C-alpha cells in the first residue's frame, strides 16, 4: 500500500468518525427525551413510542439505511447519502439509548423526589439539579457501550455508497488488486477506535460504582 492508499483510509476513518459522532450526539439527547415521554405515560404517545422502540430494535441497520435512502425521494424529500446514513444510525441508536435512560429513571429512588418537593423545589429544578446529574452518571456505562455498538454497526452506511472506513477498502483494492492489506489496516483502525471506547466505558463504570456506594 502506498501513501495515497493510506490517505484514502484516513479519509474513510474520518467519515466513519464524524457520521458516528453526529449520530451519537443526537441519539443520546433524543433518547433522553423519548425516555422522558415514556416515563410520563401520556396515553397515545406512550404506545407509539413503545412500538417505535420495539421496531427500531428489531430492524437491521442495513435495512433501515436502505429504507430511508430509497423512500425519501418518493416522499419528495431530497436528502444526500450522508444525511440518510445519519438519520438511520440516529433512529437506531435513539431506541437503544431511550431504554438505557428509562431503566435509570425507573431505578431512581423516590425518596429524593419527595424530599426535594417537600423543601419547595419545582419539578423542573428537581429534575435539572438532582435527578439528571445522577442518572447521567449511572447510565453512562450503558451509553458508552451503545456507542461502541453504533460504531460497529456504522459500516451499514456503505450499502448506499457512503465511503466510510469499511467501504474505502473496496476502493483501494480496486486500484491495487490486493484486498487483504487495506482490509487488515481498516480492521486495526476500527480496533483502535473501539478499544478507546471500551477504555472510556471502564472509566465511566468506575465512576458510576463510586457514586453508587
Amino acid at each position: 500500500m502506498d501513501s495515497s492508499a493510506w490517505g484514502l483510509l484516513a479519509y474513510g476513518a474520518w467519515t466513519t468518525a464524524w457520521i458516528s459522532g453526529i449520530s451519537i450526539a443526537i441519539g443520546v439527547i433524543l433518547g433522553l427525551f423519548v425516555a422522558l415521554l415514556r416515563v410520563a405515560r401520556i396515553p397515545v404517545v406512550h404506545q407509539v413510542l413503545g412500538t417505535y422502540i420495539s421496531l427500531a430494535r428489531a430492524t437491521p441497520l442495513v435495512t433501515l439505511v436502505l429504507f430511508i435512502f430509497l423512500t425519501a425521494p418518493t416522499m419528495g424529500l431530497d436528502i444526500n447519502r450522508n444525511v440518510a446514513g445519519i438519520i438511520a444510525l440516529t433512529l437506531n441508536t435513539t431506541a437503544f439509548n431511550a431504554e438505557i435512560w428509562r431503566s435509570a429513571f425507573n431505578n431512581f429512588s423516590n425518596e429524593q423526589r419527595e424530599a426535594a418537593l417537600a423543601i419547595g423545589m419545582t419539578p423542573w429544578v428537581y429534575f435539572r439539579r438532582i435527578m439528571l446529574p445522577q442518572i447521567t452518571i449511572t447510565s453512562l456505562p450503558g451509553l458508552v457501550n451503545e456507542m461502541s455498538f453504533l460504531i460497529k454497526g456504522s459500516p451499514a452506511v456503505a450499502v448506499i455508497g457512503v465511503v466510510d472506513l469499511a467501504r474505502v477498502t473496496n476502493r483501494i483494492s480496486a486500484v491495487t488488486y490486493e484486498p487483504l492489506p487495506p482490509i487488515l489496516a481498516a480492521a486495526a483502525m476500527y480496533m483502535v477506535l473501539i478499544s478507546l471506547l471500551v477504555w472510556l466505558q471502564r472509566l465511566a463504570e468506575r465512576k458510576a460504582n463510586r457514586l453508587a456506594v
Partner: protein
Amino acid sequence: MSNWEILWSSRDVFLDGFYNTLQLFGISAVLAFLLGAALVFLLEGSRPRLRIPLRIFIDGMRMLPFLILAYLLYYGLPSAGIRMSAWYAGLTALVLYHGAYFAEILRGCRTTFAQGQVEAAIAQGFSLPGMFLRIILPQLILKTRGLMGNQLIILLKDTAFLVIITVRELTAAANSLSSTYFIPMEAFIVVIGFYWLISIGLEQFIKLIGRYGAKRGFENA
C-alpha cells in the same frame, strides 16, 4: 395494479429471501452456540493451555465490526488462496463472530459459579467433559438466556450485512424489488415486518426456555 398487488405477485422473491435469511440465521445460531460452548470448555480447568490465544480471539472479534470480518473472508481470503462463495463466507463470518460473543457471555456467567460444584462433581467421578456437559452447561444456558436472546437478535440483524457481499437474503430481496418496480416504501415495510416477526418469535422462545427451567427447578439452584 397497485403497489401492494405488485408485491403480492412477486411474493416468491420475498419468500426466497426470507427462507435464505432464516436458513443463515438458524444454521449460524446453532454453530455459533456450539463454538461458544466449545471455547468456554477449553477455558475450563485450573490452568488452560489455550487461555491466551482464546482471549485474543474473543476480544479481537468483539472489537471488530461484523462487516469487516465478512469483507476479510469474502474479499481478503481469496488472495491468500482460500476461495468461498458469498453464502459460505457469510455463514463462516456469522459463526466466528457470534461464537466469540456467545463465548464471552457464557464465560462471564461461568466465573460467578461456586467452585464447590466442580470439586463435588470431580469427587463423584465425573470426567471433565461429562461434568461440563451435565452440570455447567445447563446452568449457563438457563442463567444467560436473556443475554443470549439479545445476542440472537443481534445475529439476526447482522445477517442483513451480508447483502453487501452479495448474499441473496431478505434485505437483498427488498432492494432488488424496489429497484425493479420502484416501490421502495412498500417493499421495505414488508421486510421490516418479517424481521420484527422473527425477533418477536425469538423473545417468546426465550420465555419458553425460562418456563422450562423453572419447571425443572433451576430457579432454586
